[in-house]
């Protein structure tokens, strides 16, 4: 998977997708709605229109937020008190308040966020990006997913995978713990000198019969060299023990509740630093309330999830920036949808796909701005709506790829990530 030329000059070389599984509320984070608090406990006024939720019925009552918002940085972007650390980075963020998707249930919305389709079977963004750009690393996989150790999300493995693209573009799923990559360790009872001899035997036996012009067989033999490099060099990249204390603290490593997400964010930095193209760091997994899926109590859920991720994310942005990596690393934050202005079971919020927030930073993104808007209660986008496919088109663009040229033939169509053509988010680029 050697590097391939871009379609146009790239701003970003790598991307880190901070995936907030379950759907974080825009109303508690980046999209303050004073009117919602004034209408708390009332039914939604008719003029806001009608929407479909997964659970909440039409006669639910609006739920005000208990969060307080403040303006931060030179840009004065409003951020809620859930994210005190991230608020300090706000001048780097392009906060898109007008995102929308087509589905209001997890699995289908997750497929759409990751693959552009509401059904499984299509390649994820990470696979498309590797297909388009190849990898710059000789010893690391091009596309890495770090799931939440609490468990899976609804759409499961198929959401991250390469779909109909060749298996070379599959994600490498990191496992929790000190040895995150499957098959990178020698089997029990085999030592490295022995394994080196075995590899030499494999090469020599292959060479004994190979035609010197046989490209496919030589490619396979070279894959073994690469595998060996991965085996010997990757553990060093994955080893956080030599990071200075100051850096660990920046990410909240060694302290709870930030230790786990902090470690994974730091790992993400080390991966992009070493040429990995696409890293997805998932917050949330397993049962719904261990994700951002706050059906029963938005306060309890979001205070907990924000506390786990705020410092690590801010640490990641600051660390990338001071190393000069933020310019070439696109960081994207978001979930598969936002949450309903109406209450579910009195203190929770239901899924909601018609207007919610994502943000982008680094990688050539114009930071320090908010883009688009939802209506006065955060129900629907009313200004500059951007669909997932627009987010996809923009991500590809920043990486130097053109959505209509990044195609792969499948079942009679030249498929692409954006399905129906996406529009670039002009404000961002």
């Amino acid at each position: 998977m050697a590097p391939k030329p871009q379609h146009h000059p790239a701003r970003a070389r790598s991307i880190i997708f901070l995936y907030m599984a379950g759907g974080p509320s825009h109303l508690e984070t980046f999209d303050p709605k004073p009117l919602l608090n004034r209408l708390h406990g009332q039914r939604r006024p008719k003029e806001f229109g009608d929407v479909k939720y997964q659970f909440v019925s039409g006669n639910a009552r609006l739920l005000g937020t208990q969060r307080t918002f403040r303006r931060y940085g030179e840009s004065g972007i409003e951020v809620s008190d859930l994210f005190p650390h991230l608020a300090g980075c706000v001048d780097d963020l392009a906060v898109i308040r007008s995102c929308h998707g087509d589905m209001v249930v997890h699995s289908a919305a997750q497929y759409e966020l990751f693959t552009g389709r509401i059904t499984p079977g299509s390649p994820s963004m990470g696979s498309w990006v590797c297909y388009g750009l190849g990898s710059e690393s000789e010893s690391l996989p091009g596309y890495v997913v770090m799931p939440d150790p609490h468990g899976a999300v609804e759409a499961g493995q198929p959401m991250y995978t390469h779909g109909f693209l060749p298996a070379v573009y599959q994600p490498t799923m990191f496992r929790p713990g000190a040895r995150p990559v499957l098959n990178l360790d020698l089997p029990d009872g085999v030592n490295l000198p022995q394994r080196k001899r075995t590899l030499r035997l494999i090469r020599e036996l292959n060479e004994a019969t190979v035609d010197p012009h046989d490209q496919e067989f030589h490619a396979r033999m070279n894959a073994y060299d690469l595998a060996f490099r991965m085996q010997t060099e990757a553990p060093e990249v994955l080893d956080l023990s030599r990071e200075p204390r100051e850096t660990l603290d920046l990410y909240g490593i060694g302290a709870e509740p930030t230790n786990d997400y902090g470690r994974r964010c730091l790992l993400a930095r080390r991966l992009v630093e070493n040429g990995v193209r696409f890293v997805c760091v998932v917050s949330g997994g397993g049962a719904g309330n261990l994700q951002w899926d706050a059906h029963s109590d938005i306060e309890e859920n979001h205070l907990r999830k924000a506390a786990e991720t705020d410092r690590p994310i801010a640490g990641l942005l600051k660390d990338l920036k001071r190393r000069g990596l933020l310019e070439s690393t696109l960081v994207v934050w978001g979930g598969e949808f936002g949450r309903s202005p109406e209450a579910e079971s009195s203190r929770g919020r239901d899924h909601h796909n018609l207007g919610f927030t994502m943000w982008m930073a680094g990688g050539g993104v114009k930071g320090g701005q908010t883009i688009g808007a939802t209506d006065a209660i955060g129900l629907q986008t009313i200004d500059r709506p951007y669909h997932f496919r627009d987010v996809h088109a923009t991500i590809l663009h920043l990486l130097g790829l053109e959505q209509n040229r990044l195609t792969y033939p499948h079942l009679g169509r030249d498929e692409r990530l954006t399905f129906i053509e996406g529009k670039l988010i002009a404000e961002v680029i």
Partner: protein
Amino acid sequence: MTDPTKRPARLAAVAIAIAITLAFSSAGPIAPSLVAGDDGPHLYRERIAPVLKAQCYTCHSAASKKLGAGLRLDSREAMLEGGDSGPAVVPGKPDESLILQAIRHQDGLAMPPKKPKLSEPTIAEFTRWIQAGAPFEGSGSSTTTTVRSPLQMAREHWAFRPVVRPPVPEVADREWIKNPIDAFVLAKLESKGWRPAPPASRAEWLRRVTFDITGLPPSPDELDAFEHDRSPAAEERVVDRLLASPHFGERWAQHWLDVVRYAESEGFEYDRHIPEAWRFRDYVIDACNADRPFDRFVIEQLAGDELSPTDRRCQAASIFHRIGPIRRNAGNPEIALSRNEVLTERTDIIGTAFLGLTVGCARCHNHKLEPISQKDYYRLEAYLAATQENDINIATEAQRKTWLAKKSQTQQEVKALKAKLKGATEAERARLILEIAALEESIPPHPATIPAIRNDPKRRTPMYVLKRGVWEHKGEAVGPRPPSVLVPDSLPELPPDVADPRTRLARWLASPSHPLTSRVIVNRLWQHHFGVGIVKTANDFGTHGDRPSHPELLDWLAARLVDEGWRLKPIHRMILLSAAYRQSSHPDAQTTAVPARDDPENRLLWKFRRRRLEAEEVRDAMLSASGRLNPKSGGPSVMVPVDRAIIAALYKPSQWQVARDPAEHDRRSIYLTAKRNLRLPIFEAFDAPSLTSSCPRRESSTHAPQALELLNGRTANDLASAFAARLRRETRGVPSQTVRRGYRLALGRPPTPREEALALEFLRDGPIEEFALALFNLNGFLYVP
């Protein structure tokens, strides 16, 4: 390209209505086309017309609601006459043709409006077409006004015309011919002045044919027998033995399971297991082994329940409709939306698997590339309108009762434990979670069930043309009818409540005169034997699919299949015994320099195509070499041990329950549970399909994770140890014998002196386990020559 919500979908419906009207009104003789150069009309039909249709017809055709600039682009006359600004096309003069200025964005013109400019290659094709005189198959010369509809034109497409058995061609080198297949292949080669490759060695051929037919390597006994059988009928004996082997079905069923995207769980959020879906896998294996006629095979899968509602085999065949992905949601699943999704999934797979047409695109709009209208799509779906799930209980009442009791008791206990989770400390939580998982695992297997389907007339979904595919946007009501391009215009729709609708669809598909069914299946056979089909796009025989490399051969084989009573084994046999199949995959590079340059894809078969083993074959071959293969056939699927982190990635880890009997872990790969949300790492690394959409042909990629899987992976190391133990047992650890035996078991041949020397050097102090593992990692193990 543009936001579909802004495009009135009714236009499309109007367009097809008009096209059909035109089709009725133009019964006259087909007008001669204006031919200028060989590829003129072809260029129009293949490259120009689809662009015009997709990009321009909304505003510039007879079907346009409001004609743009008074210009129509749907006939040659109209283009020559032009619109408000003058002629759109001046034949032979691209630079004077307004249409080119418009698509080139010159002189203030820019078409299509508000869309990206057409691609440069497309613009170049328009230029070439106009340069060639703008030949237009759809219209007559200036003396006639006959206009043929796009549908009539599409009926001329090779794959939609009847199969006519062509004569077997004459060739110069009759010596080479073993059966008629060879005459077709050689005629093409001779027309280029090329020679076929020399035959593969006997050992290579045996390895090739054995993997091809059984997915397993030849056993040492089979190698011996063939080496000693020097009679002229030796090859025939091998082929007949292999085709009669139960392993034949275990290999060839997998090809069909790929096409119908077989899996045993529903995918999406819950990835719920479909009860006993493995019965469909066994049905397909059995159909292959019994050489059930393909027309019967089609009918049983599509309509087994209608055909013979109490027959177990037909019930199992109808599981076909149940094996697709299904989205189930908590909360308020919208019944109509879900129903629409289920019917869509079931319709699409029929198009792909049997018709070899990607009908799915027509769900939301008239197909941009193929002559399938949206109405055609919903008419096809109408055959399935009354189809509902029907889990047939085949356990005894006592078995069922026991199971239900145990299940509900366990569920109660789980519920009680879950209640305790709230307010538990972290330590208690961890213990409770383990207890819950253990309980969920303790539920015994589902009592015997066939997840079949049946028609429920009371719950029949009324079928409409759905605008943009959205179920709330109902258009015209429709009844069952095959796609218009494949039937006469005069054929009426069936009444929506017609009895046994799927039998009717199946009988139409399986009729000997159907132009697609026989061609599509013999092409699939050819593809699996030769690596690439005569038509490269095995799921797409439409006007934008690949054109056949050997059209006469394809038709000859299709006709032969029908003559053989739709039995596939005689076709396999003929292919396997052909000289074309016997060719070497590595002929001398100097003598093949010209074909290698002119036909790098080897479409004309100037040599055989080497292939890498498919994912299942890699595992099965390791099992076979190590002597651990459990040859048991059929029955419930097996879950094998996998890395804990992979199970943890399931939404419900308790869904993965490893088979208790370790011998079951060594079953052939086709018997392992095909779960949509958990694919085994070794299968994933070696390009096994995604299990979510039809896979007509597997990729064969080469990358480092494959090497890591075979070097460090659990399966490879476990089986290398077993292989080493076998070698020790069978050779008493004598190094020279270990090397020879190892090569024979893993690569099906003796080592060369150089290989033997290298291996012996290694074994002086290297462990046999590592030697065995090395064999699994050799090109000679992973590829079939």
